[in-house]
């Protein structure tokens, strides 16, 4: 079809050129024959042609004009072709864009769909984790003036508070598992059930022994042989409270405990070794600290999600000092108030900076 048009245009231009050119010899011959009185009949016209050589030049006008017009036709044809090409391209592009749009819309739909499913799945998981975390309600009944600040980074958490009463002992831990998001909660379940088993069924009662056992069990559960790629585990601060003797025994893997009495705040430092993993070729043993307390003293434990949290401007970390100062300044009020004021201090500290890790803080009035 395009080719037909090509010939059409060129031919048309050449034909019109030739026809226009034909007017020159006709008019020139008629005019010459009339001027020289040769008569306007065929004989006169032929006579005029024969006797005036200029006519021969004029007679070539249709040929030249035909050629020139034909050339113009070719140019015109090129313009037409370019235009048509452009139009086709625009059409193709439009069609392509349309297809891409469709594709994007499909991807967007799929993403939204995945996001909804993932959110639903995580919210479901949250209900399970909440059920476990709410076991710390028992902590509330044993120590009515206490608090747990539990702030997952992504709905569910690798941090978890743990409480268990056995005999005269109350066991209390703030546990921080490696990972957050999805892997963190997996680890937290392992930690939760292992701690229960070690204390409840296996009968370990000294905090250092519990940590040693916990490490062994995590390594076993996760098959952490030397060449394992699973280095996961947990840091924790673990306290055993004896309300009869008014004594606390503490051991820590990474995380300390603070003891606040009316006069001062004392920090008991943890051992370096995290629970789980075969990451340390030489591992130290876990030690323990014991201290007595008076009624009205408090203890507090927390995960590094709190100390490591960056300030709003991203320049500074919350650190230990702010926790100590907060505990000192607020220990005379109720634990519920301490939680509220601590939360608002943290909110102010973070501002718009994103939360980098799960957060957990516990406070117990003894």
């Amino acid at each position, binding site marked *: 079809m395009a080719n037909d048009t090509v010939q059409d245009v060129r031919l048309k231009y050449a034909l019109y050129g030739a026809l226009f050119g034909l007017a020159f010899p006709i008019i020139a011959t008629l005019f010459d024959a009339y001027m020289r009185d040769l008569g306007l009949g065929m004989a006169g016209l032929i006579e005029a042609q024969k006797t005036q050589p200029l006519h021969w030049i004029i007679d070539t006008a249709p040929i030249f004009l035909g050629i020139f017009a034909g050339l113009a036709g070719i140019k015109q044809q090129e313009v037409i072709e370019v235009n048509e090409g452009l139009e086709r391209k625009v059409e193709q592009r439009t069609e392509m864009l349309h297809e891409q749009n469709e594709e994007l819309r499909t991807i967007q739909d799929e993403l939204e769909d995945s996001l909804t499913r993932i959110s639903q799945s995580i919210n479901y998981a949250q209900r399970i984790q909440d059920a476990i975390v709410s076991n710390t309600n028992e902590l509330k009944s044993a120590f009515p003036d206490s608090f747990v600040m539990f702030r997952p980074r992504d709905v569910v958490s690798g941090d978890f508070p743990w409480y268990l009463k056995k005999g005269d002992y109350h066991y209390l831990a703030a546990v921080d598992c490696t990972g957050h998001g999805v892997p963190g909660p997996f680890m937290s379940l392992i930690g939760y059930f292992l701690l229960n088993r070690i204390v409840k069924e296996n009968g370990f009662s000294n905090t250092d022994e519990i940590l040693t056992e916990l490490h062994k069990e995590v390594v076993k559960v996760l098959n952490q042989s030397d060449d394992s790629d699973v280095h996961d585990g947990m840091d924790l601060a673990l306290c055993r409270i004896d309300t009869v003797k008014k004594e606390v025994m503490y051991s820590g893997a990474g995380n300390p405990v603070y003891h606040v009495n009316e006069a001062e705040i004392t920090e008991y430092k943890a051992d370096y070794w995290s629970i789980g993993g075969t990451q340390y070729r030489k591992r130290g043993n876990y030690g323990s600290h014991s201290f007595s307390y008076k009624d009205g003293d408090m203890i507090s434990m927390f995960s590094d999600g709190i100390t490591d949290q960056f300030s709003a401007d991203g320049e500074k970390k919350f650190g230990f*000092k702010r926790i100590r100062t907060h505990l000192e300044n607020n220990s005379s009020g109720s634990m519920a108030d301490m939680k509220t004021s601590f939360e608002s201090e943290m909110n102010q500290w973070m501002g718009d900076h994103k939360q980098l890790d799960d957060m957990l803080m516990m406070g117990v009035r003894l």
Partner: protein
Amino acid sequence: MVESLRLAATEDTPMIDFDTSTGIFKVSGRSLPEDALEFFKPIEEWLRAYVENPLESTTIEMSVDYFNSASTRYIFNILMSLEDLIDAGKEAKIIWYYRKDDELIQAKGEELESILEVPFEMKAV
């Protein structure tokens, strides 16, 4: 000799510049990858090869201002590999940079200094 290992820093992983022409291995930035193994495994493998055929003297310069608990374990391993070098009769050293006002990174450095049997230098910046 193993070829130098260079990884540019990202939003959640540190810059790695283990230069085998100078023996100075730098780690700097923040380390909080969602999947720590994915980031650190190639580094561990590289180090394993390096320890087999090391330079006479190796210095690790750490200037990390945040690392999550999963990263801690791998960073420990990286530093720990210097003990192998010392056992093999080579020179090795760790320089731990921390911001003057960052008690956390300072404390982590001090802990590592007490655990690792590698010459350890703390430098406030």
